[in-house]
C-alpha cells in the first residue's frame, strides 16, 4: 500500500476498498492446480520421498545425528522436538505447515503473560514440513520435513541481532542454512515488522501448564 507521505503528493495512488478487495481475492485464491496427470505424478513422487524419509527416521540409530552450529555460533539443540506447542501455522502461501514449540522458560513466560520482552533463556523452535497433497477426504497431512528454526533469547549476548540468537537447519541431515554469519541479516530483516512484539511473529496460546 502507498505510504501516507506518498499519498499526500499523489492522492490518485490511493487504493479504493473495492480495489483492495480485488487484490485480496487474487492473493488468497489458491493457484489453479497443474493438469491432473502432472499433479498426480508430482504428488506420488513427493509421497514416495516422504515415505522414504519416515522409514529412515524411525530406524534405530547407533549414534545421534551430529549437527553443526549455525555460522553465527548459535547451537542446535536436539531437544527441540520435546518442547511444548505454542501455536501452529498453515502457510498456504508457500505450501508448508509449521508447529511452533517453546522451551520451559518460554512456557513459564506465557503462563505469567510476560512475553514482551521475552525473558533471557526463552527459546522457540519452528518446525516446517511440506504440505502433502490432500487425501481422499480433503485432509492435508505433513509431507517431507523441510527445516527447524530456533530463536534463543539473550538480550546481552545477542544484542547486535535484536536480542535473539537465530538459526535454521534444513533437511533430514539438519545442515546449517548459512554460508557465513551474514545469513542472520535475513532473519532480523524478516522479523523487523514485528519489532514491537520483541521480534516474535507467533501469538502463542496459553495453557501448557
Amino acid at each position, binding site marked *: 500500500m502507498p505510504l501516507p507521505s506518498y499519498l499526500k503528493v499523489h492522492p490518485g495512488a490511493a487504493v479504493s476498498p473495492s480495489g483492495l478487495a480485488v487484490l485480496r481475492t487474487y492473493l488468497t485464491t489458491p493457484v489453479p492446480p497443474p493438469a491432473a496427470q502432472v499433479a498426480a505424478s508430482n504428488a506420488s513422487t513427493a509421497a514416495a520421498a516422504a515415505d522414504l524419509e519416515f522409514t529412515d527416521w*524411525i530406524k534405530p540409530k547407533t549414534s545421534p545425528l551430529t549437527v553443526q552450529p549455525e555460522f553465527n555460533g548459535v547451537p542446535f539443540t536436539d531437544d527441540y522436538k520435546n518442547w511444548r*506447542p505454542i501455536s*501452529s501455522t498453515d502457510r498456504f502461501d508457500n505450501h508448508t*505447515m509449521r508447529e511452533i514449540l517453546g522451551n520451559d522458560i518460554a512456557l513459564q513466560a506465557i503462563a505469567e503473560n510476560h512475553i514482551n520482552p521475552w525473558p533471557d533463556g526463552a527459546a522457540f523452535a519452528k518446525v516446517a514440513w511440506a504440505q502433502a497433497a490432500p487425501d481422499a477426504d480433503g485432509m492435508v497431512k*505433513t509431507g517431507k520435513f523441510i527445516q527447524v528454526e530456533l530463536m534463543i533469547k539473550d538480550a546481552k549476548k545477542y544484542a547486535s541481532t535484536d536480542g535473539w540468537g537465530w538459526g535454521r537447519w534444513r533437511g533430514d541431515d539438519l545442515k546449517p542454512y548459512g554460508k557465513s554469519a551474514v545469513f542472520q541479516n535475513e532473519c532480523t530483516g524478516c522479523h523487523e515488522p514485528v519489532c514491537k512484539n520483541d521480534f516474535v511473529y507467533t501469538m502463542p496460546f496459553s495453557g501448557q501448564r
Partner: protein
Amino acid sequence: MATRLNEDAALVGDLPSNPLKEKVITSWFDRKIGTMSTLYGNDAAIQHARNAATADYPDGSVLSLVTWKEQEDPRWFGGKIPQKPTSVEIVTVHGTPDHYVYQRFESSPLKKVDERSAPYDRAAYLLNQRAAVMP
C-alpha cells in the same frame, strides 16, 4: 499489532488431561471445513510414534487431537493460525494394543459429547497417523 496471547485458541472446559502439556506427533488441515488439527502424545505415545510405523501403541499411551477453526494470521498475510478450538479427542490405550478408550469434547467451553457413530473407527484413525519427521 500489540503483543498478546492467542486467547481464543486456549482450551477451556472440562478435559480429563491437558493436550497442550504433551508433545507433537503430527498435524493436518481439513481444507473442506477450514480447520487445523495437531495430534499430541504423552511420553509413552511419543516414544512409540517416533520409532515405529505401527498403530500398536503401548499400555498407558495417551493421544490427543486438538482441532481449531482457522483464522487469518494478522501478522503474516498468506498464513493461517488457530482460532477457537472446535473439538478435542482423546484416545487412551489400556493393556493390550487394541483395547482403548475414545473420548470426544466439543463446543465452547469444551464438553464431553456422546459418540454418535463408530468411536472405534475414529480412535483407530488417530492411532494410525504417522508421526511427522523431526530429525
